[in-house]
């Protein structure tokens, strides 16, 4: 990677970045294009409903910034931006999002009265102030990163970090370690009570009058053993307990109790047309009970 950086340092992009007073058109174009993306990404971060999307758009903005760093001759930072930020930190974010899952907080509906207007007012006002501040600062001429990066950007940074800023550097190291320890302390959960044994669990189940026996397995029809088909109880009704709770919540239980009869009705239909006598109508057939009655009167018809 160092070598890559050193090659970058000697590439025309550097000369381009090192030119004073005005940047090259190429950089300008690059800026305008990428800046738009960055702003869009930022807006996305703020406005996306799902936090996953926010995270992704933020990652986009960061990558754009990384490019800007590179363009301005901060090669090391550019790479670090991509590796550390976009690579590590954003992934951390995504992990947490996954861990926390969807919460009510994700809705963009404002609950605090006047919060949004205040926020907008303050934000815009602040932005205007900042931009005004930058505006009336005289920034026409600037010395490029050229001679700063002569001798290599990384080496230059290293020299500074290990000479002028060594103290801050050490402190930062300490900070990082503390942070790591802190994170562990915060997230580590102490098991407060003894793990409950099989026996205790079953006793509890009996005590609370819950289902003592194992739950029925799904798909107990001869032709189906799909997980989304509930088991049939002796009285012919279905037991939702036999289907996994997720499917239950999604309402994805397939009820197959009636289509057997429907198929029988269709058979009758065809038989009737064939024998030319009136039989059952498919729409009459609704449940097992009616099947029984229709079967009985068909039986008496058979007795005549």
């Amino acid at each position: 990677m160092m070598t890559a950086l050193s090659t970058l340092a000697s590439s025309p992009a550097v000369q381009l970045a090192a030119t004073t007073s005005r940047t090259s058109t190429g950089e300008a174009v690059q800026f305008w294009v990428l800046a738009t993306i960055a702003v869009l990404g930022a807006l996305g971060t703020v406005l996306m409903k799902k936090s996953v999307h926010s995270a992704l758009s933020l990652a986009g903005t960061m990558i754009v910034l990384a490019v800007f760093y590179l363009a301005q001759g901060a090669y090391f930072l550019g790479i670090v931006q991509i590796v550390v930020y976009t690579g590590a930190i954003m992934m951390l974010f995504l992990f947490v999002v996954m861990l926390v899952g969807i919460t009510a907080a994700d809705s963009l509906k404002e609950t605090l009265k006047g919060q949004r207007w205040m926020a907008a007012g303050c934000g815009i006002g602040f932005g205007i102030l900042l931009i005004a501040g930058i505006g009336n600062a005289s920034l026409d001429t600037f010395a490029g990163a050229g001679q700063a990066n002569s001798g290599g950007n990384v080496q230059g940074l290293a020299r500074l970090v290990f000479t002028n800023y060594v103290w801050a550097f050490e402190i930062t190291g300490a900070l990082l370690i503390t942070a790591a320890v802190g994170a562990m302390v915060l997230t580590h959960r102490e098991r407060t009570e003894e793990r409950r044994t099989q026996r205790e669990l079953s006793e509890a189940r009996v005590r609370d009058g819950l289902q003592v026996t194992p739950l029925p397995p799904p798909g107990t029809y001869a032709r189906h053993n799909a997980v989304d088909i509930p088991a049939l109880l002796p009285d012919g009704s279905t037991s939702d307990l036999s289907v996994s709770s997720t499917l239950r919540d999604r309402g994805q239980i397939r009820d197959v109790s009636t289509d057997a009869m429907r198929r029988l009705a269709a058979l009758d239909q065809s038989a009737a047309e064939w024998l030319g006598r009136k039989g059952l109508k498919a729409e009459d057939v609704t449940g097992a009970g009616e099947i029984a009655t229709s079967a009985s009167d068909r039986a008496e018809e058979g007795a005549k």
Partner: protein
Amino acid sequence: METLIGLLVAAPLLGAAVLLIGGRRLDRSGHLLGTLLALVSFAFAVVLFADMLGKSADHRTLTSTLFTWVPVESFQAQVGFQLDQLSMTFVLLITGVGSLIHIYSIGYMEHDENRRKFFGFLNLFLAAMLLLVLADNYFLLYAGWEGVGLASYLLIGFWQHKPSAATAAKKAFLVNRVGDIGLSVAIMLMFTTFGSFTFADVLPAAAKAGSAQHATITGIGFMLLLAACGKSAQVPLQSWLGDAMEGPTPVSALIHAATMVTAGVYLITRSGAIFNAAPDAQVAVVTVGAVTLLFGAIVGCAKDDIKKALAGSTMSQIGYMIMAAGLGPIGYVFAIMHLVTHGFFKAGLFLGAGSVMHGMNDEVDMRRYGGLRKFMPITFVTFGLGYLAIIGFPGLSGFFSKDKIIEAAFAKGGTEGWILGGCAMLGAAITAFYMTRVMLMTFFGEKRWVPDAEGHEPHPHESPSVMTIPMIILAFGSVFAGGLFSLNSRFVHWLEPVTGYSEGDSPVSTGAVTAGTLVLLVVGVGIAWLMYGRRPVPAVAPRGSLLTRAARRDLLQDDFNHVVLVRGGEHLTRSLVYLDHSLVDGVVNGTAASVGGLSGRLRKLQNGYVRSYAVSMLGGTAVVVAATLLMRAV
């Protein structure tokens, strides 16, 4: 010798300390110790007196400075004594009469369980009074001045279980405090004017002060007069003296007749130089004196309580002294002379009254006496001699001293002189009247006493010798003192170096004054005899004329005080208490409440939602940025 002066004060002070701190274990011997120390002090006084007589008239002043009391830059108050003829006179009077009354009290207070305390207070009084007359500066004098006030407070209220006594004591102290304002302001004026308040500095300076300081010195004079009024029970601050009779009789005799109440006279005489330099103040002084001598006399006529009658007479006699002192150099000497003689006979009279009460189960209403001369002859004789002395019977003390004052009053000259002289003579007549009245109602006529509340028939009897002997001695004093002093005007020469003396030229001859006085005297006695001697005295007081009724109520002065000062003061304090709670406190609490409300409203902003806090943070940041930008812009 100088050290003796200090010891003079120290002896009774020691007594007071020992008796008051010693506690119950001294109950048996306390009174003896107190009396002993009083006598010791008297002995010192006599020694000093002898020593002083040995010196020439101009070198008789002794001074001794013990230590610096209050040293603050130019304000240097020394504890220093100055013993000159004037102080000497007082010292002798105080210690002498004081010792006698100590002895008398041994008998009088025999049955009181707090006798030790009583003697402690008496000693305390002696010490304070001696301090007053021996001080060589006004500041130390002020200490003694308040000290005697304290002693009088303690002794008037000695029977504290009697609410009337406690009230009277409080009243006495308060009225005296009003006078003390005068003294303290006078001292401040002296300090700011002369940068000092010692007699040695102030008096000469006042004497030779230019017209520039005239107003100031007049002011000092008035302030000193106010002080004198308070202490000497002069109008308008006389109201406390009558009530002060709540105290045990020896106290009335010593403090409220012989010594303390004359402190005002001492103050004015001592400050003669100032008053000489302030004629307006002198006019005020003589006016006060004249008014009081009539006031007291009139009050004395109406009282049926023997002690209150005597109190009125005291007031009036001190009025004479104050008036004399106000006359300037012509009067100072005679003021003091009358003070001394009065000290004798008035103390004698009070002790007599005490002896009468002693024999009558502490009955004070003269309408319950009568014909006592048969039961208590010694008391009768001594009281009678005192009576003759005070009405100015020729040849007795009162005659010499009072006549001189009347002459001096005339000698003041002009209409003023006539008015004053007239008042003085009128006062003499009234004195003769009310004293005769007291005499007749008490010792003559037939007995009028009745069983008291518990049904004890009083058995009048002569007092024990421990009480009668002092009375006899005082009687001697009241008979001969005056003559002794006036013999080739010895007293004048004695005091002249201190107070100064000038023969006034009287418009009327001495003989005429004497004659006139005697005539009035006879008239007064005659009227009294007609009213109380010839026909029996009614056992219950008749309603009497308007004046009589007013006089019984101290000429309505107390009512005035009550309505104006007491009621008014109560209302003032009540309203102030209310205001302090509602207004001063209310304002503050009100602001507090409003602030509380505001903060309550502000607290709504703190809704606990992180994001609204974040908004305010961002807003704040925006403001800061804006501020910085503006700063850069300008």
